[in-house]
């Protein structure tokens, strides 16, 4: 067996991680439609990394995963595992674990038979199979369910069986195709923790596809945000959230208040007659003179003041009217309409001092210059 042999119990230190590097070079998948499903994507997934392919439906993230798995064939480009070109290899020779949204458990086999399936396909001896199955069922906390059929298990348990089956043979990498999509909110949270724990313990490369940005930010070492078959932005979750390069990224991850700028330079931004100061470090490198640009602010960075005199000097501000107040449990959010025309909707997370707002009240929304971001689009 290779270095990626599955292990249990003691966590693998990051330095000796057993994962595989997956490299996509100029990968294109064209079904002959108006636009390629995956359009010249290059991406290197590091050994042991938890990489999430995030994006709306039709953005190419699932097609990319299927290309890595070998279920789809490349139109152009190449895919390699640890430097070995696998572009022409059929799925059953790629040695990948795969987790599907619908679990894809074999209904006519018991839990133990399902988990043993990849081992039997690899001609492992019976005692070894029994030992491995017991080990991995313990890892996913399903000991004692060996003899059950999938239909006798809950959704969460089924997905644990699928997870056990996907990692039991020490795959090169684990591909997860929206595995939590069919589960309810609480179960999702539990299984997210589970997946992270197993990623730490197994130490192999995980490629996770989801359209859920919270899930992506929760789980990932890095996120590749897909849009229209291309990678819109690649980076750590905090980087995507705090420093989006484009309007698409800003809108897709978290809530944003978006001001479409009529003019943007390295030092000022103009919106509806307001001239705001700009810190050049918060301007995306993709912003070009004369091209559309937008200023975005996160709800947690927007504060409310009674009038402009109350706004600190290192802040930008805009006139606003409180349209609604949402109670979120831990905090409340004000829905604002901003500017003279009031046609920009914004959100501000309220703190205790701002609790006496009334709906319809004219206020001033402000945010610190270093908490805003100027993006392309």
């Amino acid at each position, binding site marked *: 067996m290779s270095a990626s042999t599955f292990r249990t119990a003691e966590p693998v230190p990051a330095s000796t991680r057993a994962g595989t590097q997956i490299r996509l070079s100029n990968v294109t998948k064209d079904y002959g439609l108006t636009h390629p499903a995956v359009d010249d994507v290059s991406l290197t997934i590091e050994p042991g990394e938890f990489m999430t392919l995030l994006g709306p439906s039709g953005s190419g993230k699932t097609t990319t995963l299927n290309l890595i*798995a070998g*279920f789809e064939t490349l139109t152009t480009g190449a895919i390699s595992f640890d430097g070995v070109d696998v572009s022409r290899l*059929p*799925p*059953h020779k790629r*040695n*990948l*674990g*795969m987790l*599907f949204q*619908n679990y*894809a458990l*074999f*209904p*006519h086999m018991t839990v133990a038979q399902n988990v043993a*399936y*990849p081992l039997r*396909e*690899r001609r492992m001896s019976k005692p070894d199979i029994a030992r491995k199955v017991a080990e991995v069922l313990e890892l996913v906390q399903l000991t004692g369910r060996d003899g059950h059929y999938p239909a006798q298990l809950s959704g969460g348990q089924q997905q644990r069986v699928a997870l056990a*089956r*996907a990692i039991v*043979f020490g795959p090169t990498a684990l*591909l997860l195709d929206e595995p939590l999509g069919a589960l309810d909110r609480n179960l999702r949270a539990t299984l997210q923790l589970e997946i992270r724990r197993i990623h730490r313990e197994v130490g192999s490369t995980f490629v996770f596809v989801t359209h859920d940005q919270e899930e992506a930010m929760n789980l990932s070492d890095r996120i590749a945000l897909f849009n229209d078959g291309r990678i819109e932005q690649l980076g750590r979750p905090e980087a995507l959230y705090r420093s989006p390069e484009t309007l698409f990224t800003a809108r897709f991850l978290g809530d944003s208040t978006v001001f479409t700028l009529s003019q943007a330079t390295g030092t000022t931004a103009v919106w509806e007659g307001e001239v705001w100061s700009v810190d050049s470090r918060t301007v995306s490198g993709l912003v070009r003179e004369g091209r559309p640009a937008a200023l975005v602010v996160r709800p947690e960075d927007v504060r409310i003041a009674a009038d402009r005199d109350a706004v600190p000097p290192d802040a930008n501000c805009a006139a606003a009217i409180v349209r609604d107040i949402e109670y979120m449990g831990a905090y409340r959010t004000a829905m604002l309409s901003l500017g003279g025309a009031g046609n920009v909707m914004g959100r501000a997370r309220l703190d205790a001092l701002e609790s006496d707002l009334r709906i319809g009240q004219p206020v001033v929304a402000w945010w610190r210059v270093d908490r805003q971001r100027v993006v392309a689009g």
Partner: protein
Amino acid sequence: MPGLLRRLRPRPQWLLLVPALTLLAWILLVPLGNSFLRSVGNGDWTLRHYESLFTDGVTMRVLVRTALTAAAVTVIAFLLGYPYAYLMTRVGPRMRGVLLIIVLIPFWTSVMARNYAWIVILQRNGPVHSFFELFGLDVVLYGTVAGVTVAMSQVLLPFMVLPLFSALSGIDRRLLLAARGLGSHPLVAFWKIYWPLSRAGVVAGLILVFTLSLGFYVTPALLGSPQQSLVAQLLGQRTTLLLDFSGAGALGMLVLVVTLVLVAWANRLGGTISAIGVVAAARTKDQP
């Protein structure tokens, strides 16, 4: 009895069964009971009619021939029907409709028209004979068990295709992707995943076609020969020519028991009664 009575406690919806049960009682149970009574001597209580089935030297030969013919028809229908049903699950809705119509054409054709068409096709100097003559062979299927088998396979193909299609279209194809991802060659994935999941449909189709073949009458009577008759012809002979209702009753009972045993066995192999039920609604007219 109280336990049974409690379980059978009348519920209003049971009334919906009354018309069907009344009809069944008159057209099935009464004649069946009648046949049974005649087969055991009509009040004299004797098993000699059953004994003679095994000793008359004809019945057993015909039964074996019938069983072999039915088995051949079943195998042919399966070999044609499985790929056909598989194809039906892989094409678009429009093409699926076309395929369904093609397989159902024998249902919609008059029994006589269909059988005489087969006579034309299979007889001496017919297209099949001419085709084999190209290779210097003198093959006349008309009047042979082989000809009967071919014609019966055509008629019974829907009974194979429909339960198969119903079973195959219920199989999640992503399971095949999962199996390939786990290291199975596509053919292995088919054998280990797809085939076992299609088994209920396979059993339903096999049992349906086999039991229906056992009772075929018109096709063997028209296309076969009296020297190589099948069990339904034997029954016809005994009732209409020999007026041996007791012997016919005994033979009928034997065939009925064999069929019921087969159906019960099939049901144990995996919930096939419902699959059979769907298709049995469209039972062919080619029955005695």
